[in-house]
């Protein structure tokens, strides 16, 4: 199945999970629950993280492990213009960035794990994976009614950890800055570097982390760009390579 089709056919995938088509899904990315953690979807039954070993792609391991944590909101799916669903699109972005078409992280020699669970579970898995860099992948919103497509902001926002007393994660900031530069240069709006002391995936990961809000999904040019992830997901690999000095 085309990954594009995957991102645009959520109903099909959910039915697939419910129907127990686990074998078919074993080689497909995992999809977050639509209705939030309190729903019965939260057991994540049959949903697996994906591991990409560079040796399987004919590459030498460069010694670095990357954990990609695509949007999987505790409170359920988030939507934008034209039927866009953040939790589906960002899974597709993660797969493409991990092992897409040759210019991705696995082909650059990184050992990549794509998390399939809630953020707290993903952080536990990332910490036990021995992750060197952790990247949460999201798309942003500025207005309540995303599908109405009346967003007031555009551009990549790349977040790093900064404590309330002002301590900054140096590697987290450097990674976020590379994501701002490389992904931001490819996105339609003006990019910016931001910090937070609160975002869970920035404050609880053992590895330096960045939280990428790739573009605004309630702004039409941003949403169009987000679903065209095949053209820009390679920039995540570029950012990681730049940050780590092309190991």
């Amino acid at each position, binding site marked *: 199945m085309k990954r594009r089709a995957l991102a645009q056919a959520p109903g099909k995938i959910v039915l697939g999970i419910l129907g127990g088509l686990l074998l078919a899904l074993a*080689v497909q990315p995992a999809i977050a629950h639509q209705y939030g*953690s309190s729903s019965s979807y*939260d057991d*994540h*039954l049959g*949903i*697996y*993280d994906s*591991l990409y*070993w560079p040796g*399987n792609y004919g590459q030498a391991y460069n010694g670095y492990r990357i954990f990609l944590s695509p949007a999987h*909101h*505790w*409170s359920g799916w*988030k939507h934008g213009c034209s039927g866009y669903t953040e939790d589906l699109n960002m899974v597709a972005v993660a797969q493409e960035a991990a*092992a*897409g*078409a*040759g*210019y991705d992280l696995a082909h650059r*020699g990184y050992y990549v794990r794509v998390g399939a*669970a809630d*953020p*707290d*579970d993903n952080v536990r*898995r990332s910490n036990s994976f021995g992750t060197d860099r952790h990247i949460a992948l*999201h798309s*942003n*919103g*500025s207005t*309540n009614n*995303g599908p109405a497509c009346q967003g*007031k*902001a555009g551009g990549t*926002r790349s*977040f790093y950890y900064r404590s*309330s*007393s002002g301590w900054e994660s140096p590697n987290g900031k450097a990674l976020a800055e590379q994501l701002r530069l490389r992904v931001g*240069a*490819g996105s*339609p*709006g*003006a990019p910016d570097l*931001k910090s*937070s*002391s*609160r*975002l*869970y995936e920035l404050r609880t990961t053992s590895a330096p982390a960045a939280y990428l*809000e790739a573009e605004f999904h*309630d702004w039409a*040019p941003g949403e169009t760009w987000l679903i*065209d992830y*095949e*053209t820009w997901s390679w920039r995540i690999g*570029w950012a990681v*390579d*730049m940050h780590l000095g*092309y*190991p």
Partner: protein
Amino acid sequence: MVLVDAREMPSDLPPVQRDESKNPCADLWERTRSEARANGARDGDARRQADVARAACESERSVTPTPTSFAPSPCLGDQLGRQAPAADSDAVYVYFPCGDAEPSAAGLRAFERSLEPGLTVEQKATTLVSWLLGGPGETERARGYLAPDPVAAEHIASVEWSGGALRIDLAPGIEQTAPWSSATFSTGFLAAMEQTLFQLDEVTTVELSIGGECRRFSELVEFGPECVVSTRESTG
């Protein structure tokens, strides 16, 4: 419940059909890398050359979208946060983030309001929270301020204050009043809330919950399963 582990992805996934017209520079990446390696470059240097070549090709071939710039939000020209009013005054400020210009207290803009005299701490806090959730007026919204839909102000279930701790419980349904899970919105709102509520000298901590569960609020804003407790010291 954790039943999930990881699966190694096979390297022989069915080939993904790609729209080559959208990726006219992808092959260049591969070509540049293998040529550099054939010329004796180490792989890292070969990748670096490939990245530079692809990025240049993409901007030349307009794969990279033409940057769309937003007109700067008019609110950027508004006055920044002001000093808290004198203790004997009824004037207070309600703070709102101007777009996502800077989701920190320093970038918030202040709106003057006045509280009725003689209110209890809980009544003052309730009024401030309803102003925060209700957002600025239509004119100001049009200037670019970010705030929940005005109906959010109707979702205050209870406000309790004891020993300096302020607990604000919101009614279920508040989830549908703002893009709470986006990092831009959540960081901006929390900064505005803290700056506004800590004007009350009697308040030392603020905790938000939904339907009595603080976890439900903190998970909504992607801050995690623990409660979000704002302290006066950590605000600023």
